[in-house]
């Protein structure tokens, strides 16, 4: 690579070497383009970013070392350049630190001011949670959604940032006292600041569920309890099931409930179990769910009401009249097999 000629005593590189470097640089640029243009699904974002950084550091080094001759030139130059780079990186790190730590600490400050909500509003069981206020220190986030799940009255707040990537990252869930003025509690979470409009709707619905308004009431406590003793092992406390083995009920059970024959199918599924192939949310399950006829009519009704109103199911309900113990009683004693119960399954358009 070294060239004996060189007017200023330079150990310059030959044209051939330069050309080789240029080709490598071009090739790296093409690779960078290719991995982004034909994004391969199996490469995770983390690794891709890592790879891209490695490639660019490679290009950087090639240019600095060979085109700028730093590799063979006086150490003084490299010294200067290194110092410059170090300062640049230092600025980088400092900036990043300043900003991220700033917002993290404000989240912390908020999170460490617990219990306020419970005591302020006179609620009793802030269900082991401690109130976590909505961090005000995230100016770039706006409130996207508030959900509450009828039973535990916890709020899930999605802080919306414009990019969907970040959207998922900022999701805060915190419990509310089970009794007390819902609106007031939510307001105190926002530090008394304006409560977003959407809270109104959820509040009304939430009250209806939690305080047993006529026509909407069911025994939420019994429902949760039954679910947690009977169904949770398979369908999981989140209702997500286990992929491939136990189907999800999340954003799904309500769809069964909505269609004609759905109520009866749900009741039969619990009373007689299920057996056979069924496609749920895009996955085919061919498995067995045990019959739960040992549960009382009240328990079956409550657990199903709980399921169809939890984990985002409620938003999917077109109408809700709780399943009554009488309905369950009416379907008992038919001696159906799991396969026969599955035949009752109405066909769904959605998941």
């Amino acid at each position, binding site marked *: 690579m070294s060239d004996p*000629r*060189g*007017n*200023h005593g*330079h150990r*310059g*590189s030959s*044209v051939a070497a*330069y*050309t080789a*470097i*240029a080709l490598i*640089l*071009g090739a790296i*640029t*093409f690779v*960078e*383009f290719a991995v*982004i*243009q034909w*994004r391969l699904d199996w490469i995770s*974002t983390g690794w*891709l*970013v890592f790879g*891209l*950084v490695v*490639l*660019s550091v490679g*290009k*950087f080094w090639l*240019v*600095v070392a*060979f*085109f*700028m001759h730093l590799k063979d030139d*006086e150490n*003084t*130059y490299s010294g*200067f*350049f290194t*110092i*410059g*780079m170090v*300062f*640049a*990186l*230092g*600025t*980088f790190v*400092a*900036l*990043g630190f300043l*900003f991220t730590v700033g917002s993290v600490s404000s989240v912390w400050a908020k999170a460490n001011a617990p219990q306020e909500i419970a005591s302020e509003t006179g609620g009793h069981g802030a269900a082991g949670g401690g109130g976590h206020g909505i961090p005000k220190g995230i100016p*770039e986030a*706006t409130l996207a959604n508030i959900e509450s799940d009828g039973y535990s009255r916890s709020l899930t707040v999605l802080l919306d*940032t*414009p*990019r969907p*990537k*970040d959207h998922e990252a900022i999701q805060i869930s915190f419990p509310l006292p089970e009794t007390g003025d819902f609106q007031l509690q939510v307001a105190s979470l926002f530090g008394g600041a304006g409560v977003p409009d959407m809270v109104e709707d959820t509040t009304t619905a939430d009250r209806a569920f939690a305080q047993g308004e006529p026509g909407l009431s069911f025994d939420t406590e019994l429902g949760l309890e039954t679910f947690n003793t009977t169904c949770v092992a398979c369908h999981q406390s989140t209702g997500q099931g286990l992929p491939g083995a136990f189907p999800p009920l999340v954003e799904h059970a309500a769809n069964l409930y909505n269609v004609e024959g759905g109520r009866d199918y749900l009741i039969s599924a619990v009373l007689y179990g299920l057996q056979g192939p069924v496609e749920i949310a895009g996955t085919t399950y061919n498995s067995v769910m045990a019959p739960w006829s040992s549960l009382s009519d009240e328990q079956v009704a409550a657990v199903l009401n709980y399921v169809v109103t939890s984990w985002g199911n409620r938003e999917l309900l077109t109408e809700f009249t709780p399943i009554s113990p009488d309905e369950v009683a009416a379907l008992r004693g038919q001696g159906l097999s799991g396969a026969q119960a599955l035949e009752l399954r109405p066909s769904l358009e959605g998941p």
Partner: protein
Amino acid sequence: MSGSVALEQVEHQPHRTGLPDLKLIMWLFLASDCMFFGTLIGTYLVYQGRSLEGPFPADVLDIPVTTVSSFVLLMSSFLMVLALHALRKDDIPRFRLWTFGVAFFGSVFLGFQVFEFSTFALEGLSLNQNLFGSTFFVLTGTHGIHVTVGVLMLLSILILSFVKPMSSKDAIFLEVTGLYWHFVDIVWIVIFTVVYLVEFA
């Protein structure tokens, strides 16, 4: 005339460092420019993904087009070393050809940038539209100004070579300009990755 004599003396008198002053100064400048761009890129990163309104990076950035312009800039660096190589060998015609090539490729890169900026503007991105707009334009704009200065330096050398005969003895001027040019290129290498590629990773 006396000015040029003085310059000559400055140029060829060894100093305590034993290194040519001009080159030393350029490296010092580059080191400080490093910090400058470090701050700009750092600022871009800090505000990355914090724009509340569009257009967002993913809406406007064009990877194929920018890949081509990045490639053009990389190749200009290649021509730069060829130009220096030719001048050191007193191969004046080649030196002129390659120097012109560098300036030309640099201008092509700038053309791409003008095209890019105007498309972004049409899509509603401006310096004060959102955080992305301000950080992006300041960063890439500053880089564009660096490229422009580089092109002007190269063209001056090219014109000078016709006015006053140049030889391998003058290589130091081209070498220092080359350092500047390569530096501008490596800054773009970083920008291309950080601003463009990573956005779509």
